[in-house]
């Protein structure tokens, strides 16, 4: 650029230029306002001209400098490994969306029909984490493993992108036209239209369905639940003339008797029940006593103080025996031919105890048999529990299946009497016991429509698939228990061309309103008047959306009056009981089927987080084995993984066995929810379909009616992938426990007093905080919600069955489960273990590259970028909490789970790095949450309050067993727990000085563990 002469005509391009030119003529000449960083190399002077440079910024550069810079940039370009990524800013930024700052929405979980209130964390417009809504009084702020995993099912690649007509993609307009015309025809001909749905807790949806009833004379709504609770409702109908499912209050019960009801695991509303149960089970004088009678060892049975393993057919007899002893003075001798390992005296003692706790005891039963449920309901009534530990008003709407209607429907379908069938949230072609009958009937239905989100077993046979939204994309409401309302609001715009089922139903009715408007108007008419807090509906609506829930007062019903004489009905019930089956000999057993904590009824089979979640009891992933008592397995010479054929009632399946301590020797147990063929690539072919063993009983109810099965060895071997293969503590003091009596005498019972061990290491300088965790083993039920929560929060990869079998699962937190005592009736303890963040960490001293160091906050940090993967830290960790990335898990077709597609990776938490191959990882105490909390505190100027920062595992726990806090703050709950006499450290005598502590487990029983 030649210097400007003063008198040359200057053309300017812009006003700035003109202005600048007037002010500073020299800068105008430079193309770059800042001088380029030419460095004066020593050689440059030698090559420079003798005259000093006119403009040092430009002319000071020499050829050598130029070459140096060119060489550098060439080298830099060659070394550059970054791929081009496009970051597009919003043209119109959404309100309240700050990149990097999460937005929270309150909604209701749709993982099952329990309808827990949850908060959804969204980042950049997409939901990435589910958390319980602490303020919702019903559920206590926790979630279950299924709820935590539903965020991933939003990003399931198997979801339909658009509606289908006869299997081919179609537009909504086409499908609507076809369906509406068919419905019109059917309506005109007074044909039968049936909506077959799962439990609908949404009052607004029920309202829409009511409209359908009013519109079409032949319309019927049938509720189908594959695991049905209809017996309980029938029992209440018989006794109280009200077919209700009671609302159970475990927190009001000082004595809980469970009869084949896994209420902490998968029965009815586990999150709510766990929260109630944990509240009542705090060690102390008012600690509840829990007795469980069940067949297979369930999560609930593992937590019971006293557990009896009995065959399923004996449950009814037990209930009857208890009712006898409680309701009348004469105690009939417990029938001698009952091959129960239960002395009559024990039953007497239990009955006495029940009587002592009148009005504060609770007997729950999960058997699908009207007679048994009638006996149990009567038992509760006699004990005065109704209205205290179980309420009929408010009642529960969480299960509404009507089995007889389902049977009638299937018959009608087969006869060709059903003209139109709408399937909403059900999959009978998979889980209906007589799926062949259903499919035959389906063929004869003129119009079949499914709202399924994928082409599942049923949707592959229907005419139209109109995929429903995922609950995270949808509007809605829920009323799980009378008076406890909650809203469902979308947290992301629908990803695909799906449409809310309610919108479809409204459209086909010819309504103009969409469901959102309908929902608002329904609430305005029906819910808004129930409360008096807000006068303005808009305020009210926004308030409920923000809070997530609304508790409306419920009219308390008068004490339920029992109809019919007590004793006669009871006697009749007992006489109606089938005789105990002659089983347990040779290869004939009673069959028991159960829902697993991870997969429940199988609707989430395509969710890799749930498939890889180790079963809390068996610690098996990706499938379940047939649970057999170890003694029986020994007798039949069966090892874990030996494949057997189970034949009974005309059904024959094959699956590997699993030796299950605590399993009664008369019974084998099979898991429901497996053996799917239409779930997707993750879930198809995992496990065996056990639904066909169920059936309609004599009372018309769906359930597992006493079935005798025969086992046959096949000689084949199909190993199960278990994360824990050794189940004994080997006498090591890992879980410390004491009985309640011992605890009341000496709160420090069960553990050794902590002694300060000498240490060669220098003390760490404490920083402004010292973060730590305390885990209350008395509260922890082993439900493993924390495992999935941690996986969601920290982008922990899924590795698949083969890798789990090799011992390479990646979960940062695991729940160890140990058995004590005889294999036929063991005591069970659970212990969540994550990185203990030791002050004298054995891993820190051995890492050669200092990839693991101790922070001043007391956290053992793993620095992924620095790790070279020698794995010495993994070897030296006595707790074995470190996880190594054996392969590249992300963007690797070999691990085609949630990290191999753009859709699946939307669930990843952007605050947490996705680790590369060859790098070690482990629990970080959710350091990203700690940092976020510290940043927020710094910005607001306040100090960090106790409970403001919660780790993912703490937040998810429905029992509030995990407590995170600052040990330097004496008022924090974690610090107080550390001072508790129940507090101990795991492997304390190694001198690792962990930052994680445990509180002893207290059992409410007289004798010490056997």
């Amino acid at each position, binding site marked *: 650029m030649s210097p400007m002469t003063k008198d040359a005509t200057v053309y300017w391009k812009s006003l700035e230029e003109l202005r600048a030119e007037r002010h500073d003529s020299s800068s105008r000449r430079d193309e770059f306002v800042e001088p380029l960083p030419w460095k004066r190399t020593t050689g440059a002077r030698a090559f420079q001209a003798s005259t000093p440079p006119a403009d040092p910024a430009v002319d000071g550069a020499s050829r050598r400098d130029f070459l140096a810079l060119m060489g550098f940039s060439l080298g830099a370009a060659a070394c550059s490994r970054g791929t081009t990524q496009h970051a597009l800013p919003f043209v119109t930024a959404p309100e309240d969306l700050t990149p990097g700052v999460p937005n929270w929405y309150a909604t209701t979980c749709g993982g099952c029909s329990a309808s827990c209130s949850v908060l959804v964390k969204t980042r950049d417009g997409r939901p990435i984490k589910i958390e319980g809504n602490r303020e919702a009084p019903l559920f206590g702020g926790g979630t279950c493993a299924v709820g935590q995993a539903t965020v991933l099912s939003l990003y399931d690649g198997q979801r339909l992108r658009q509606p289908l007509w006869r299997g081919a993609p179609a537009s909504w307009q086409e499908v609507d036209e076809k369906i509406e015309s068919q419905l019109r025809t059917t309506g005109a001909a007074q044909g039968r239209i049936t909506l077959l749905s799962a439990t609908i807790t949404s009052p607004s949806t029920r309202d829409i369905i009511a409209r359908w009833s009013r519109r079409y004379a032949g319309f019927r709504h049938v509720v189908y639940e594959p695991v049905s609770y209809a017996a309980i409702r029938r029992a209440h109908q018989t006794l109280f003339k009200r077919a209700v499912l009671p609302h159970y209050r475990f927190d009001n019960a000082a004595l809980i008797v469970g009869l084949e009801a896994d209420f902490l695991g998968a029965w009815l509303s586990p999150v709510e029940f766990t929260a109630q149960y944990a509240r009542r089970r705090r060690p102390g004088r008012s600690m509840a006593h829990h007795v469980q009678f069940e067949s297979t060892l369930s999560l609930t049975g593992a937590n019971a103080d006293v557990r009896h393993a009995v065959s399923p057919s004996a449950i009814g007899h037990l209930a009857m025996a208890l009712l006898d002893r409680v309701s009348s003075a004469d105690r009939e001798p417990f029938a001698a031919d009952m091959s129960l390992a239960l002395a009559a005296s024990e039953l007497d003692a239990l009955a006495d105890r029940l009587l002592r706790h009148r009005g504060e005891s609770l007997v729950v039963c999960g058997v699908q048999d009207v007679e048994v449920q009638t006996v149990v309901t009567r038992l509760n009534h006699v004990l005065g529990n109704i209205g205290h530990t179980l309420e009929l008003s408010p009642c529960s709407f969480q299960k509404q299946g009507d089995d007889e209607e389902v049977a009638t429907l299937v018959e009608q379908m087969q006869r060709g009497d059903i003209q139109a069938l709408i399937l909403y949230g059900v999959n009978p072609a998979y889980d209906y016991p007589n799926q062949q009958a259903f499919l035959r009937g389906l063929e004869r239905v003129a119009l079949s429509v499914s709202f399924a989100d994928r082409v599942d077993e049923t949707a592959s046979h229907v005419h139209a698939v109109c995929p429903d939204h995922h609950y995270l994309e949808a509007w809605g409401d829920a009323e799980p228990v009378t008076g406890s309302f909650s809203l469902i609001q979308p947290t992301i715009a629908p990803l695909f061309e799906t449409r809310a089922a309610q919108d479809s139903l409204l459209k086909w009715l010819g309504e103009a309103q969409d469901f959102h408007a309908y929902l608002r108007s329904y609430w305005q008419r029906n819910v808004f008047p129930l409360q008096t807090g807000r006068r303005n509906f808009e305020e009210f609506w926004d308030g409920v959306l923000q809070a997530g829930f609304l508790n409306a007062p419920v009219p308390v019903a008068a004490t339920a009056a029992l109809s019919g004489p007590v004793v006669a009905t009871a006697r009749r019930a007992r006489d109606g009981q089938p005789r105990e089956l002659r089983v347990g000999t040779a290869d004939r057993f009673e069959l028991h089927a159960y829902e697993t904590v991870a997969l429940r009824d199988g609707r989430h089979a395509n969710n890799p987080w749930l498939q890889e979640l180790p079963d809390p009891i068996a610690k098996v992933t990706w499938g379940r084995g047939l649970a057999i008592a170890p003694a029986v397995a020994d007798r039949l010479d069966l090892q874990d993984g030996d494949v057997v054929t189970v034949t009974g009632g005309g059904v024959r399946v094959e699956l590997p066995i699993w030796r299950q301590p605590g399993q009664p020797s008369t019974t084998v147990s099979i898991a429901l929810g497996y053996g799917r063929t239409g779930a997707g690539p993750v879930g198809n072919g995992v496990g065996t379909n056990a639904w066909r063993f169920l059936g309609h009983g004599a009372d018309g109810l769906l359930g597992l009616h006493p079935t005798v099965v025969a086992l046959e060895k096949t000689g084949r071997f199909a190993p199960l992938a278990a994360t*824990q*293969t*050794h*189940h*004994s*503590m*080997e*006498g*090591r003091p*890992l879980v410390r426990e004491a009985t309640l009596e011992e605890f009341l005498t000496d709160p420090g019972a069960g553990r050794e007093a902590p002694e300060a061990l000498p240490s060669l290491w220098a003390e760490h300088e404490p920083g402004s905080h010292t973060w730590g965790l305390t885990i209350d083993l008395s509260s922890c039920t082993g439900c493993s919600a924390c495992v999935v929560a941690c996986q969601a929060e920290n982008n922990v990869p899924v590795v698949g069955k083969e*890798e789990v079998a*090799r*011992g*390479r*699962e990646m979960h940062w937190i*695991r729940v*160890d*489960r*140990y058995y004590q005592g005889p294999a036929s009736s063991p005591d069970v303890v659970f*212990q969540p*273990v994550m990185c203990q963040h030791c002050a004298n960490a*054995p891993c820190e*001293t*051995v*890492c*050669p*590259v*200092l990839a693991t160091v101790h922070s001043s906050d007391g956290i053992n940090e793993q620095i992924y970028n*620095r*790790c*070279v*993967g*020698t*794995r*010495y830290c*993994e*070897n*030296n960790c*006595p*707790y*074995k909490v*470190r*996880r*190594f*990335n*054996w*392969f*590249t898990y992300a963007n690797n077709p070999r691990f085609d789970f949630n990290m191999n597609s753009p859709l699946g990776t939307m669930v990843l938490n952007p605050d947490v790095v996705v680790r*590369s*191959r*060859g*790098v*070690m990882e482990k629990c970080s105490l959710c350091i990203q949450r700690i940092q976020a909390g510290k940043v927020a505190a710094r910005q607001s100027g306040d100090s960090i309050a106790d409970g403001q920062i919660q780790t993912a595992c703490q937040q998810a726990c429905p029992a509030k067993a995990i407590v995170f806090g600052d040990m330097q703050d004496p008022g924090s709950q974690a610090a107080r727990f550390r001072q508790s006499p129940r507090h101990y450290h795991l*492997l304390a005598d*190694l001198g*690792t000085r962990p930052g994680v502590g445990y509180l002893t487990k207290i059992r409410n029983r007289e004798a010490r563990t056997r």
Partner: protein
Amino acid sequence: MPGTARRTLTPAVECARPVPLRPAWLEGSLALRQISDDIALPLSARPGAGWFVCIAVSLTALAVGVACVTYQIATGIGTWGLNKSVGWAFDITNFVFWIGIGHAGTLISAILLLFRQHWRMSINRSAEAMTIFAVLCAALFPLIHMGRPWLAFWMMPYPNSRGPLWVNFRSPLVWDVFAINTYLIVSLVFWYFGMLPDFATLRDRAGAGGKKRIYGLLSLGWDGSQRTWSRYETACLLLAGLATPLVISVHSIVSMDFATSILPGWHATIFPPYFVAGAVYSGFGMVMLLLIITRRVMHLQRYITLAHLDRMAKITLLTGSLVAFSYASEWFMAWYGGNADERFVFVNRATGRYAWAFWTMVACNVVIPQCLWLRRVRTSPAALLPIAILINVGMWFERFVIIVTSLHRSYLPSSWVMYYPTSIEIGTLVGSFGLFFTCFLLFIRLLPMIATWEIKGLAAAQARGRS
């Protein structure tokens, strides 16, 4: 120092030939020229069919190893059988195995030199070569066992602009880096230095052309003068002094990979001497194995005599007894100490899922070498060969047992798992043997495998009087 003249006692009466005080380390009287010819013969002659067969096998093994390692580095450590509890198995077993084997060479070259054991002269060159190759094989394993081996240079404390960020000097793995590198460098220098006069001999014998030039370069202008020899021998002594502590220190440091950890079964102070004894033990096993075969194939029986084998077998027996004593000491301390976790480890070793490996180790390391008490066995190559092989097998299993049994069942029973090797790991082990034997086979064809200049000194001394 080579060959100091000794006087024999003049017999008072005529009787049978005087019994020498020491065995003859060279059989027969050999002219110096003859020695040069014998030792240089393999270097110029065409190798026999046997050599070709051997190198074909070892190259195949090497190729298998290269393929396995390439696959493993490209795909991940997951191609091995390691898991959440067992972080090391074949990789570190092989590492310790090969490093241990190297120790015999250094002991023969350096320590026996300082102890003036002249019988070492025939064997020290090949033993030292064996050390180099063994350390090379060993050094590969820490490199490839890393999850991100392309960042292996981070284990070195080099100045950098990231802080600067140093390595963790408290970590035994960093000590390993120093120890192995020191060992490799000192051994290389010592080995090369020891070959200088022999390179000069070969240079002088070679006709004009490439070989003369190469040997000339390698001999660094050796002129054979008195002054050169004098300085040379001093330098050898100094290098030997430098190399001697390495025999103790290197394997002590390697043992601290285990001893400084917290695991029961690893956390024991006996590890340094136990490992050093074991290293010398396995090293002598490998030396005997190599020399028994080589002396036969290369017709060097007059240089590597049965007396040499006898001496080596005695050292083997000594170190084997030390190893057996270490085992006994470990077991005793586990019982006497009363620590439940420690006791369990040893009971588990003998009766648990890997008991077969444990008893193989005991049979090969403790029981079978007891045969070496018999002189007949010690002087019979046919008997020593299988014993040497079994010693190596036993010592490999010893490291396997130590590593895997302590890892697979440690403190928390919930993390107890089984470890099963994969074909990739086995292929890598085979490849390391391929590398070792390829190097050794090349060595015996390209470099003088016996220290010619030392042997000549020995022969001269023997000729002058009984040495």
